[in-house]
């Protein structure tokens, strides 16, 4: 029943006191350990095995040098990176500038996740064993910073022998990385990592990861995860667990980042995306009315039981608070109020002319919208029902429907949908990623990752480019450009911010303590989600302490 190749015959227990059990990321049997297959690699592949040049810690907004020792813009088109010395791959080879150059150049393979990097990157060359110089045709500071901490470096000496296909989609069954853990075993329902004692950071930075083993448990469902958490089988879980508020309050030994509402850090924004190519959603007034109609309190309190918070009118995450132009918000934000919604509708000429209780377009066409949410995503389904109810309360007919996920993707990408809820962009080092998500042009036949609403606004898109060109440290400048984008967003409302999805995390102190918490000094993101180890979660592991032995 198992595929435990590479367990070296050491079949047996993982001592409980030395093992960290995690869950919440892996939704199917681990099948690939390829860090370039960004949506599918086994939990921990990037972070535990493969590492990035920097980490970005959103709580503090700090870039933490990791495989790189430092990096700086020499001029407006040159970036120079100093690599850490004495780092070795787990097979004993040295980590060098060639590995970095090789990894960056993988972007030139058609289909690579960071192919667009090469649209403005001209070259990457190893100056010496530990220095890499990048030459840009255009300085996209934001994107570059993002690239630096997000993408894992792979060993050239192994990967250079692989075909392009293998590189992009191969399973990479024996991952060789620089990180603190190595592959130990996997089965249908778990992935096991084992600590590497030779990890460079121990010596270089004094970091030591606490658990000898990490067993990441494959999710079958949120409720199964809840059961495992309650039974103490899982130390940290990153699922959305219904009823977690009760657990935290009720002495079940379950803890979250905040001891009270909203319990969780914010991880991303859930947006209501109207299809702006369709009537009447092509009308900003209508979109604003729709936004105003939504009863967010109901969603926050009743659907989520206080586990989420209503999003800022700009939709930007709390971590980006400093980039929000409060004056713009005050002036342009539409309040969430059914009466306001009704007023906007009336003013814009939406009236119930045929007396069926719902408004028609100014041309008198009936409005009948469908809001889609993937079947089985229970919290969203419930929220969709609330949105439908509150829209109908102001006279906009919205029906919630729950197609299978694939069907939804199909409708969403091809632009067939009316309304859809989406939260694809995660927290990052720059609000640029959000505005890229909202305004990206040109609109393609298939919108696979961004601008699902197919909103076209050249000015806004230009501003997004401008934002990218602002050095990330220059908060003032960023805020200025971002403020303009916020105004457009609030006036046009191409996507409607709903709530901040939590960085779902529930931890148990039975075996490991000193979890990230607002109450302590450990403020790293408590997450195993793909892409989050780079956001500092890896450091959380170094802060963990074994629970004191109970008498």
């Amino acid at each position, binding site marked *: *029943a*198992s*595929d*435990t190749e590479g*367990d070296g015959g050491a*079949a*047996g*227990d993982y*001592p*409980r006191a030395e093992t960290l*059990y995690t869950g919440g990321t892996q*939704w*199917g*049997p681990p*099948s*690939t350990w390829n860090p370039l297959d*960004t*949506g*599918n690699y086994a939990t921990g592949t990037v972070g535990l095995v493969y590492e990035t040049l920097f980490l970005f810690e959103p709580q503090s907004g700090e870039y933490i040098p990791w495989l790189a020792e430092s990096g700086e813009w020499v001029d407006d088109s040159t970036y120079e990176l100093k690599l850490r010395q004495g780092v070795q791959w787990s097979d004993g080879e040295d980590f060098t500038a060639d590995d970095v150059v090789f990894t960056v150049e993988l972007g030139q393979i*058609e*289909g*690579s*996740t*960071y*192919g*667009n990097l090469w649209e403005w990157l001209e070259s990457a060359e190893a100056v010496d064993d530990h220095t890499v110089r990048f030459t840009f045709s255009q300085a996209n500071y934001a994107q570059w910073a993002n690239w630096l901490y997000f993408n894992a470096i792979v060993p050239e000496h192994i990967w250079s022998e692989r075909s392009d*296909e293998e590189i*992009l*989609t*191969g*399973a990479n069954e024996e991952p060789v990385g620089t990180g603190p853990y190595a592959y130990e*075993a996997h*089965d*249908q*329902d*778990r992935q*096991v990592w084992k600590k590497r004692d030779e990890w460079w950071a121990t010596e270089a930075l004094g970091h030591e990861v606490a658990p000898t083993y990490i*067993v990441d*448990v494959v999710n*079958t*469902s949120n409720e*199964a995860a809840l*059961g*495992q958490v309650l039974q103490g089988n899982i130390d940290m879980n990153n699922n959305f667990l219904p009823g977690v508020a009760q657990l935290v309050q009720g002495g079940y030994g379950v803890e979250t980042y905040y001891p009270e509402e909203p319990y969780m850090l914010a991880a991303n924004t859930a947006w209501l995306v109207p299809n702006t190519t369709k009537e009447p959603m092509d009308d900003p007034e209508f979109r604003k009315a729709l936004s105003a109609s939504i009863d967010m309190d109901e969603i926050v309190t009743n659907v989520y039981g206080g586990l989420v918070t209503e999003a800022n009118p700009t939709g930007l995450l709390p971590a980006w608070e400093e980039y929000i132009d409060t004056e713009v918000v005050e002036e342009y934000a539409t309040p969430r109020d059914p009466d306001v919604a009704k007023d906007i509708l009336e003013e814009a000429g939406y009236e119930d002319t045929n007396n069926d209780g719902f408004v028609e377009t100014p041309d008198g066409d009936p409005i009948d919208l469908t809001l889609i949410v993937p079947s089985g995503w229970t919290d969203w389904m419930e929220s969709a029902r609330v949105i439908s109810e509150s829209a109908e309360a102001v006279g906009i007919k919205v029906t919630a429907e729950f*197609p*299978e*996920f*694939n*069907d*939804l*993707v*199909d*409708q969403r*990408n091809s632009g067939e949908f009316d309304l859809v809820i989406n939260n694809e962009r995660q927290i990052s080092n720059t609000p640029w990623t959000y505005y*890229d998500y909202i305004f990206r042009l040109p609109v*393609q036949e*298939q919108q*696979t*990752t*961004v601008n699902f609403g197919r909103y076209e606004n050249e000015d806004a898109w230009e501003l997004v480019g401008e934002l990218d060109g602002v050095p990330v440290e220059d908060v003032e400048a960023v805020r200025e450009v971002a403020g303009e984008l916020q105004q457009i967003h609030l006036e046009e409302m191409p996507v409607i911010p709903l709530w901040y999805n939590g960085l779902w995390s529930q931890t148990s102190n039975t075996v490991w303590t000193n979890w990230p918490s607002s109450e302590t000094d450990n403020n790293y993101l408590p997450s195993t989600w793909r892409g989050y180890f780079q956001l500092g979660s890896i450091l959380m592991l170094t802060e963990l302490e074994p629970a004191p032995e109970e008498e």
Partner: protein
Amino acid sequence: MRKYFGRKIFVYVLTFFAAVTINWMIPRLMPGDPIQSRLARASLTDAGAAEALYEYFNNMFGLDQPLWQQYLNFWVSLLQGDLGISIWNFPTPVTELIMGAVPYSLGLLLPSILLSWFVGNWFGAYAARSKWLDNTILPLGYVLTATPYMWLALLLAWSLGIVADLFPASGSYGLSLQPAFTWTFISSLLEHWFLPFLSLFLVALGGWAIGMRNMIIYELESEYSNYLQALGAPRRLIRRYAFRNAMLPQITGLAVQLGTVVAGALLTEIVFSYQGLGYLILQAIQNQDFFLLQGAFLFIVIGVLIANFIIDVVYVMVDPRVRVQMQGGAK
């Protein structure tokens, strides 16, 4: 005899063909695109990259060919024993995924089907013994058959698993273990197996008990029973005969019920997050993983067919009536 089995096999082949075709067709005719969804998960920032990868996968899975061609390819590779590669779990071969799940499903199904069959029949025969027993066992049997598989599973998971904490309520073996031939592992395996097994066993049990009870009442009223009674044969002997004869239709009943039990097992596996085919199928459906779905379904169909065939053979072996008829004996 040969003719009889020839015909049976023909029906089986036909069933196999129909089932597999249905299963091949339905997901493909439905909206949604598994590759798009796979790519959507990867959050590619680059539209060009998405397109290239999309083409690559489409070509690799052969989804860019016309449907009839895909269908042909499917049979060709099926006959070569190649079930393809899972889309959802790329690049794991479907066979590997299924082989990981099948032992668990079989481990649940075989004992629960066989045990419930034997115990159920025994109970049923017992029930037909007196009015008192009939009035207690029978209603219990009905409650059990009427119980939705997953509900019983839920009740057991909740009461014995969560509240009483006697058995683990999910998973197939302890998280701290690796499969091995050690007592710790096997006992953990059994612990995890017990509740799903019990729920399947109980639901099926009721059906068999009732079936047996009804059959045996008919048998006890039959003319040979009457004759034996008139000759003063003890009840013991008559019951034995009746039991044996009533058992035979129950064998065919087993064939009829197989599909249901397998389906019940899927539900049970889902409730207990058991690592069997149920979970795989559900995931395959949700991710529109054509290949995995085909594979898992194929496995079920083949399993059911083989089981049916075995039952057919057994039936012919144990029931002289059928055997004689087939040999064209005296009518």
